């Protein structure tokens, strides 16, 4: 089995896992969930870092820099805004 096929395995299994994971989510948590998963795809920050480290020349550096800024805003903003939202879900005392 080549590395490509193995990654493809992971990809397909992750599809099913994603579906299973949110199947039982009550609709009251849809907004926090959307916002939380939104933060998780902020992992693109890592991709931005990898390509910026490798960048040569002005254009490539600017592109990579913008990618890192976008990715960082996505990941930090995403987790912070989700936390702010969820902090407010409280039980009756």
């Amino acid at each position, binding site marked *: 089995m080549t590395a490509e096929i193995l990654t493809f395995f992971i990809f397909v299994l992750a599809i099913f896992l994603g579906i299973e994971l949110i199947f039982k989510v009550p609709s009251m948590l*849809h907004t*926090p969930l959307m916002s939380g998963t939104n933060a998780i795809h902020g*992992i693109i920050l890592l*991709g931005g870092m990898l390509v910026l480290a490798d*960048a040569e020349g002005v254009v*490539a550096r600017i592109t990579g*820099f913008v990618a890192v800024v976008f990715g960082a805003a*996505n990941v930090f903003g995403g987790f912070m805004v989700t936390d*702010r939202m969820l902090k407010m879900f409280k039980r009756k005392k």
Partner: protein
Amino acid sequence: MMSTPVALAYLAASVLFIVGIRLISSPKSARRGNLIAAAGMLAAFIATLPLLHGPGGGAVPGMNWLLIAAGIGVGLGLGAYGAYSVKMTAMPQMVALFNGLGGGAAALVAAMEFRHAEGRVLFATAMVFAGIIGAVSFSGSVIAFLKLEGKLEKPVTYPAQQIVNAALLLCIGALGAFLALSSHGIGLFVVLGALALVLGVLMVLPIGGADMPVVISLLNSFTGLAVAADGFAISNVAMIIAGTLVGSSGTLLTLFMCKAMNRPVTNVLFGAFGKTVANGEATQCVLGTVKPIQADEAGLVLSVAQQVVIVPGYGLAVAQAQHVIRELADELVRRGVEVSYAIHPVAGRMPGHMNVLLAEANVPYEQLVEMEAINPQMERADVCLVIGANDVVNPAAHEDPSSPIHGMPIIEAEKARTVIVLKRSMGKGFAGIENYLFYRDNCRMLFGDAKASLQALVAAVKAA
């Protein structure tokens, strides 16, 4: 290639993401779940540091380290500012914006990596996919943001719109296939990205504001898939898993939302909501007249009730009246009235948005009842108090096959003994259609600003 410690750290990060999403599924553990997912992100971040390498596999140039650090700093600042300055009512557009940034980053990473794709078709295909989807997600999210901010309220339609979109999609598909097979040509790749940006704009422009949640959810899953494709191309397992989880769960979430509105997803995306609204005048005379009520009388009706159901809508949040409604509910509970809140799945601007807004006002979530659970109880309710909600209580969804919302599940407010609707004026709801409920015999209208009306109601109940 990845060393064993890095691989294990990525595995740990993936597990933390999965556990995190799982815990967000329950109100009790949701906050912990989010923090666990964030911990996973930190693990993935640290594990990536040893993977960074400079041009030609050498050490990372100091200049690039500096840029990475500065980029993270700027992004952190922007993200934190956005996250902590946004009002809870504006949450959906904030999520749209963060999502768009992620999509934009995915497209940029794809463009950067495409230069190394020469001769590797599979690799190039993943980059092309990430570039298209990321760019669509970026521009689409920006339009969704502007729409929710009220800067582009009306759906934009023009003749042959769908043909133009289909033609554009075809061009993008053809160019994408060419790029993937030839696997070189960064200039053409940029053209492809630009076309995808235009497609994102054209796709979202004709969609009405009421359907934006569905669009944001869909674009969220798009970004996830773009990130996964990027991860595939740079063989980063953590990115593949995280991106795919978001992509598949986001797709399902989108379908859930469409189901809540009883409309197929194709109808939302291509239907240009509100086109059929020509029935306003014709039905006007059949509907009859509305019956106003004053706050003191409404207060009296409430104070003698045994069971009160409150239906909050986005109007409540706009008037910043969440705290007053809790005050009213507390006062009623103190008098032995049974109070519950009926939450429509798409109340507010996103599914679950209303729960967040009420939680902000310290309403205990045990009092929040979902639509399916409240409807069978509605006949036993003495009073149904509708505040700033409109389309989600419109019986036209059941009765008028020509209505654009026909078939959408609604909260059956009209079944309560008395319905009191708090409303600023006779203006129409977000969907821009006439509400049959307001003309019912058991319905009374309390006109005015929601917050002022509620304050008057609290005073009236206290006096009664």
